């Protein structure tokens, strides 16, 4: 083989291992020391050594074991050099032995023990600031770099970098354990992991056109994490519910914009553009979750999506089911956002008057004054009752609050149409 070819082969192998095992290797290395940053550094140095060594020696039979052995040596070297007492000599020896023993096992079975879920639980620990949990998981489990995560979460790279470093320091210094919580603790803790995954998905969702390179991959990465959690905890209904919810949303991605890139609301989407295979998987997940007999937020939201795509077969969303599900979500969360969606569903089953009353009931909530969908919903309902002037004002506020230009244009079109019908009614 020419040196060029062996270079290419080494790079391809390293890429494949990174894709397949990055999170596993970080989780494995960090689980013993709780030092995520050191694990990441050691692993990236190990990858660099691989790229210089493999072209000369050939790719090892178990690249993972090779990388683990090299990374382990780096961690121990750094620990020795530091000798700050944080990793005392005795601990270092234990660490070396454990890592050696496992690296040998890995070499034998070609399999790194999967501790990614434990790593995710450490990242989403209640002692970690809620806002940094999703970015932290994306970085340590998937290896995304800080600047990419920063742009996806609309944060400056410096700030994101600092917050990630601080979070990793906290894991190490506060002694946050790498473990899957016990059964009785699990419901509370799993929620934080699922929330972090959903936050990553939602950040990517905000860029439906996929024009923003940094955010384009987020839904895909979130789906990967969602699948991983359900593989590792196959009997957790909320984990299944979250995956179903994300698949349902993802299935409609193509239908959310028309060919001109304009926003298309759910009710006007063409069901033939929905990914029916993905919807079927989501439906099966929801059924399975439901059979486990413990309802929660993500299952309800997944079921809502399911009631909406009912239209795919019947031509009509299942509105009574939608209202019922929002009732359940409202009881569970008391969220004003849920109340608004519930009001819009009520408009379909009981009419505009009942919907406006439902929306008025929550209008006092100050959180809503800066919430675009509240004003858009209000405008929509007011327009239906013929209160054009009030509707126009509500649209104005909604437009002022929206950050996505396509959605802004959509709202402007609605407002414009209103101006026309308002004019007509004035003439008549």
């Amino acid at each position: 083989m020419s040196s060029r070819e062996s270079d290419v082969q080494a790079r391809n192998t390293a890429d494949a291992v990174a894709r397949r095992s990055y999170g596993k290797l970080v989780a494995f290395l960090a689980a013993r020391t709780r030092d995520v940053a050191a694990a990441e550094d050691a692993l990236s140095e190990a990858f660099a050594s691989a790229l210089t060594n493999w072209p000369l020696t050939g790719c090892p039979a178990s690249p993972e074991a090779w990388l683990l052995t090299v990374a382990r040596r780096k961690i121990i070297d750094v620990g020795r050099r530091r000798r700050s007492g944080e990793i005392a000599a005795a601990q270092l020896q234990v660490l070396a032995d454990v890592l050696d023993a496992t690296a040998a096992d890995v070499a034998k079975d070609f399999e790194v023990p999967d501790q990614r879920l434990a790593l995710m639980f450490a990242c989403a620990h209640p002692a970690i600031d809620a806002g940094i949990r999703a970015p932290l998981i994306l970085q340590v489990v998937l290896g995304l770099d800080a600047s990419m995560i920063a742009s996806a979460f609309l944060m400056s790279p410096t700030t994101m970098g600092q917050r990630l470093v601080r979070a990793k320091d906290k894991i190490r210094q506060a002694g946050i354990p790498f473990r899957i919580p016990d059964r009785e603790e699990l419901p509370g803790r799993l929620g934080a992991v699922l929330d972090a995954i959903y936050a990553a998905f939602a950040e990517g969702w905000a860029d439906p056109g996929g024009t923003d390179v940094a955010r384009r991959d987020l839904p895909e990465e979130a789906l990967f994490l969602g699948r991983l959690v359900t593989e590792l905890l196959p009997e957790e209904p909320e984990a299944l519910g979250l995956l179903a919810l994300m698949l349902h949303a993802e299935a409609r991605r193509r239908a959310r914009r028309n060919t001109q890139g304009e926003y298309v609301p759910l009710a006007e989407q063409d069901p033939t553009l929905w990914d029916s295979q993905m919807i079927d998987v989501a439906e099966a997940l929801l059924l399975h979750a439901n059979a486990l007999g413990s309802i929660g937020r993500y299952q309800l939201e997944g079921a809502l999506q399911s009631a909406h795509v009912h239209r795919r077969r019947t031509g009509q969303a299942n509105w009574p089911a939608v209202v019922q599900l929002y009732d359940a979500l409202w009881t569970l969360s008391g969220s004003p956002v849920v109340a608004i969606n519930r009001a819009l569903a009520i408009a379909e089953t009981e009419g505009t008057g009942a919907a406006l009353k439902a929306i008025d009931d929550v209008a006092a909530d100050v959180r809503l004054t800066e919430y675009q969908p509240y004003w858009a919903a209000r405008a929509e309902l007011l327009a239906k009752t013929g209160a054009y002037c009030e509707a126009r004002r509500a649209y104005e506020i909604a437009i002022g609050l929206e950050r996505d230009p396509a959605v802004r244009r959509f709202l402007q079109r609605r407002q414009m149409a209103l101006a026309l019908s308002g004019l007509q009614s004035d003439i008549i």
Partner: protein
Amino acid sequence: MGAYHSSTEALTKAGVLAGSNRLRPISTATTVRVANGKTQVLNGPYPDTKEQLGGYFLIDVPDLDAAISWAARCPGSSHGTVEVRPVWPTRT
């Protein structure tokens, strides 16, 4: 105090208690500061805060979750707040 007694008892039984002290109220506090080589002694606490440190438990547990579950069992966490902090490791 009965509640504290049983909580301390439990910590001792579990073999995690490394030390604990109740502190007398801050009205008994004296503040010491050395500036320009001079020792200044002031009557009273250093900052006037609403929250006061009433005492501490030094426990030896494997991780934060273990510390949190002990903190939650401490009577202080029901009528006040328990702050959990790691100590700096001592050099060996």
